[in-house]
């Protein structure tokens, strides 16, 4: 029997041939934490006298969830992260640099790597053909100190995608459709392996969006082959020499095969309060929107901002709708400034925030009021996610979010294109 992508990557890190269901101790290439999980990881290492990083140049402590800090308690947490980095030689990504998952894609992850991160959306890195998965602070702490972790090799769902995206329909719509189809726990503990003609030509920013949301179906990772598009992306990021080809064997064993033809898709909306509560744009029209949030590790990349800016160009946000734009990283921000996208957003009435997680985590920069509706390009819409259990979060693509900012209600972006 051949091997899936995840079986190949874990085998290479466990020094033996492994198949789904096996439990192994595997070497870890990259460990990451963020300011919500890093402080606990450090405390755990201090508690057991293991305050060290076995591979400091591949250990990155991000400050992105509350950046700049919104509370003195968090400022103190940030200090602890800076101190640990200084002590161990680990890399600190400080206020203003951006969201951990965007930066790990831009700067660190190579095809075939294993990345464990104390953030559930670490799975984003699967877009680069790496096994990237979220774990808790203690798991990642031990990974930092020992350079290894224990893993159960997951079974794989093959997601075979065909067709060309119609106008106004994007990778985000595909992912919301998929999660609606299989459910928020439809792929619990599985690896999602994306393939098919649509995936073969899908640009990296869209692959990152799909991989990012694998966890919203319960999956352990969302994986892509490492191909010419991966090579191109790595070259652009200045590490083309790190590219290796990686693809699943033709006779690999899949738990389930899900086929999706994107030509039939429409813009999708996740309604409160679970990501799998998906409806088409037609079923969602006219819902009043008090806040539009464009950004995050799901859809805060340059290409996302371009799509939103194109719709918002020479238009104004609806007077009853706030528009918040948060680029995913410093690089994205800089590129967006240079392209004039930020100017377009400001002219349309947007508030621009420091690169980071922004309003998505409910800590700051866009907490909802009681009964307010937010249409966001993020990955999650749980009760309380944006800082108020009485707020309602809807999820969409950047195009649909931009359309709502103009209209003040959920609207079909295709009417504005």
């Amino acid at each position, binding site marked *: 029997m051949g091997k899936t992508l995840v079986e190949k990557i874990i085998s290479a890190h466990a020094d033996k041939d492994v198949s789904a269901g096996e439990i192994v101790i595997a070497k870890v290439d990259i460990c990451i934490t963020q300011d919500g999980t890093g402080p606990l990881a450090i405390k755990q290492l201090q508690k057991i006298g293991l305050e060290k990083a076995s591979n400091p140049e591949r250990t990155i402590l991000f400050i992105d969830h509350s950046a700049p800090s919104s509370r003195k308690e968090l400022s*103190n*947490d940030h200090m602890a992260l800076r101190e640990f980095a200084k002590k161990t030689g680990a890399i600190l990504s400080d206020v203003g640099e951006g969201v951990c998952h965007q930066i790990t894609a831009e700067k660190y992850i190579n095809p075939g790597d294993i990345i464990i991160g*104390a*953030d559930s959306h670490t799975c984003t890195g699967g877009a680069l053909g790496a096994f990237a998965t979220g774990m808790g602070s203690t*798991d990642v702490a031990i990974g930092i100190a*020992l350079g290894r972790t*224990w893993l159960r090799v997951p079974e794989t769902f093959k997601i075979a995608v065909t067709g060309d995206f119609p106008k106004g329909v994007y990778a985000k719509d595909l992912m919301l459709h998929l999660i609606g189809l299989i459910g928020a726990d439809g792929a619990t503990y599985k690896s999602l392996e994306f393939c098919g003609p649509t995936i073969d030509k899908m640009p990296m920013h869209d692959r990152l969006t799909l991989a990012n949301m694998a966890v919203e179906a319960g999956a*352990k990772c969302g994986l892509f082959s490492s191909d010419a598009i991966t090579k191109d992306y790595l070259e652009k990021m200045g590490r083309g020499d790190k590219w290796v080809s990686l693809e699943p064997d033709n006779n690999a064993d899949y738990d389930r095969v899900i086929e999706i033809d994107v030509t039939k898709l429409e813009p999708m909306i996740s309604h409160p309060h679970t990501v799998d509560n998906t409806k088409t744009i037609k079923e969602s029209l006219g819902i009043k929107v008090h806040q539009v949030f464009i950004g995050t590790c799901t859809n805060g990349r340059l290409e996302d901002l371009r799509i939103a800016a194109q719709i918002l160009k020479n238009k104004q946000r609806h007077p009853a709708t706030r528009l918040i734009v948060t680029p995913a990283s410093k690089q994205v921000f800089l590129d967006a400034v240079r392209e004039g996208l930020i100017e377009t957003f400001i002219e349309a009435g947007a508030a621009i925030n420091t690169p980071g997680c922004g309003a998505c985590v409910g800590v700051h920069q866009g907490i909802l009021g009681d009964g307010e509706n937010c249409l966001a390009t993020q990955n999650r819409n749980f009760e309380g996610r944006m*800082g108020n259990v009485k707020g309602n979060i809807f999820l969409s693509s950047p195009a649909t979010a931009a359309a709502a900012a103009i209209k003040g209600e959920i609207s079909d972006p295709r009417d504005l294109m």
Partner: protein
Amino acid sequence: MSLTGKSWKFGDNISTDHIAPGRLFHLRSNLPELAKHVLEDADPNFASSMSPGDIVVGGSNFGLGSSREHAPTIIKLSGVSAVLAKSFARIFFRNAINVGLPALICDTDLINQGDTLEIDLSLGIIKNITTGIDITFVPLPDVMITILNDGGLASHIAKHGDFKLSI
């Protein structure tokens, strides 16, 4: 080992935001304080009304969402002896065991709010004392039993100096 307590029923898809919400992000380095708010956004009365030893009983996909280990940690800190659910989101499940909180998969439809439960971890049986029904739970993988018996992953590594799992 046997655990006894009263059940607190919750529905499907209890997220880490229900358990340890983002609006209390600043309390993550003050876990005893954060524990006073455990599960607050799912049941505002839970933290103030529960008694040590009580058992949280969820539906399917318990603990979905964030990787925040603070979620199972404050459930444990509040005195809860175990979490039962029809299914768990994977990061929460792993985190629960890592912090020494038993997370067991069973048919929670057989449990009502307030039932007295007795969990025998070694026999793999939950006795519903109130209804008289015995409920079996899915055995934990050996590696997780080892970690749980050592009191969590940090203690496991402290004890052995490395992973010592029967793999």
